[in-house]
């Protein structure tokens, strides 16, 4: 009886001690700043495969450094940067003015570094006869004005339109550059994704659904394209040449739906964060970009 009472009394004490230790650990981690040997990278789902490879290599060369990469989406990364929850924000879109204002209000000064480029590929099921689309056709598909493949030269079948959800930088970039046709005479910033578009929580899920669903269309980054899906050539207008997304067409600027992959830090990076970014931008780091399937920075 006596022992069991003691045991029951010890339990809350142990729980409290553990909680206190965990809390102390957390505050120590966030409080130490530049001298810490751990880097947190949060942001774009698209940049994640690349950052993970860089992080692994950098940790191999510097065993004392630990780098944690997570990819909930560019918006989430920028939100984390503004809230001071991350050292580096990886993003597949440029930061918005409203976000810069929010950051400044919290004393955070976003500093932009381009680390690679990406082409957004448009993919279909291999059995789909459609091989090229104009930006206007893509816009009409993604606003649900065109709902059947026969309207763009394909089979008489409904179009299953897949997109990333609002957490993703890809979502915002595709909306501005394709749905709203930025840079074209037909540009219309009032256009939004149609209400029958399926918003998916990850890029992999979209690619695997396209590989299985003969009527689906999706827009993954170059790094996510597999051999189970078919790439579509993109034309600016019906009279322009159609161009396939590839490292070459993204680099020479002929491919239309290309974008920079960015790192944002709070102010100019210093210390260990600078060392890591320098590695990413080095020839060795840029080689990895090609390996992962993205486009390295032009030399």
């Amino acid at each position: 009886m006596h022992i069991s009472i003691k045991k029951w009394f010890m339990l809350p004490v142990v729980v409290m001690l553990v909680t206190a230790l965990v809390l102390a650990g957390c505050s120590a981690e966030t409080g130490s700043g530049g001298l810490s040997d751990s880097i947190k990278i949060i942001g774009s789902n698209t940049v994640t495969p690349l950052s993970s490879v860089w992080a692994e290599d950098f940790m191999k060369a510097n065993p004392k450094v630990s780098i944690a990469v997570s990819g909930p989406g560019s918006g989430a990364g920028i939100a984390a940067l503004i809230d001071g929850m991350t050292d580096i924000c990886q993003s597949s879109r440029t930061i918005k003015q409203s976000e810069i204002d929010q950051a400044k209000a919290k004393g955070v000064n976003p500093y932009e570094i381009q680390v690679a480029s990406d082409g957004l590929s448009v993919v279909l099921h291999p059995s789909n006869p459609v091989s090229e689309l104009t930006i206007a056709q893509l816009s009409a598909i993604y606003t649900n004005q065109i709902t059947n493949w026969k309207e763009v030269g394909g089979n008489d079948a409904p179009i299953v339109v897949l997109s990333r959800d609002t957490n993703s930088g890809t979502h915002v970039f595709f909306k501005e550059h394709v749905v709203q046709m930025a840079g074209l005479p037909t540009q219309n910033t009032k256009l939004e994704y149609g209400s029958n578009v399926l918003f998916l929580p990850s890029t992999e899920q979209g690619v695997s659904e396209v590989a299985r669903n003969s009527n689906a269309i999706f827009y993954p980054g170059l790094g996510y394209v597999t051999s189970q899906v078919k790439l579509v050539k993109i034309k600016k207008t019906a009279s322009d040449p159609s161009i396939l997304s590839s490292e070459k067409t993204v680099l020479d600027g002929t491919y239309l739906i290309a974008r920079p992959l960015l790192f944002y830090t709070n102010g100019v990076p210093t210390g260990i964060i600078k060392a890591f970014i320098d590695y990413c931008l080095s020839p060795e780091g840029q080689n990895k970009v090609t390996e992962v399937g993205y486009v390295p920075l032009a030399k």
Partner: protein
Amino acid sequence: MVAASDTEESLKRRLRLGERFIEGWIFLAGLLAIVVLLGIVAILLKEGLPAFGYTPPWEFLFGTKWYPVSEPPTFGILPFFVSTLMITLLATAVAVPIGVGCAAYLAEVAPSKVRETVKPIIELLAGIPSVMMGFIGLMLLSPLVQSIFHLNTGFCGLTASIMLSLMSLPIIVSVSEDALHAVPNEFKEAAYALGATQWETIRHVCIPAALSGITAAIMLGLGRAIGETMTVLMVAGGALAVPVSPVEPMTPMTAAIASGIGNAVRGGLQYQALFAIGLILFIMTLAVNLVAERVLERQKRKFAG
């Protein structure tokens, strides 16, 4: 003699002391639960209510356009609200007959050996992480639903409902089986003595007698279905249209919160709107619980009278 009574005294005192510690601890634990609940309500109100300053509650609830990252953003959650209702009701409609039937079989019909092996296995189902259920829905169920119903895509409310019904089944079976098992044997014996068959006994005696427990089971299952997030995020499709049939892609409220919260800046408009969805979700589950309480109360009175 004196020494012996002394130790007895001190033992008693120590026990009393221990008792007080435990009482105090339990009191604190109870208090903590209430404090946490009040804290959650307070945070939901604090973060969520300002959203109604930007979008009036009426427009928020019945608006059909949800464009949180546009300039200017629009927040209308009718599509999510309808999706949640549709998916939850369908999941409950599938899970309740199967769950209660299974419980009745286990409690009244199955030999005790079968019951003792099957029940723990069903309860084990409850422990499967929801992301695993999501994967099963993604890989196995959605292609199946797509080919059976000749749909454009297998990501739809129906797929989500079936997965949710599978997830709420263990709770419904386990709790209703306990309730049925607790029905006094005299009730059944009396029914058999009047010449009732086994089916008549289950249908007219056991289930009505255990109805309060079964209702509690159904409500627990319903609560699980309303609140489940990961699975519906993965298989429900995520379309923004107001769904008119369960075989359309849709976004329930929980999935809408999950797919937007990562992007939202703390204190921003979208953040507040997502908390407002959370607030409405909370009010819905509260309403379910209140209704359940009323039903149980009435049931008890009926049996007492």
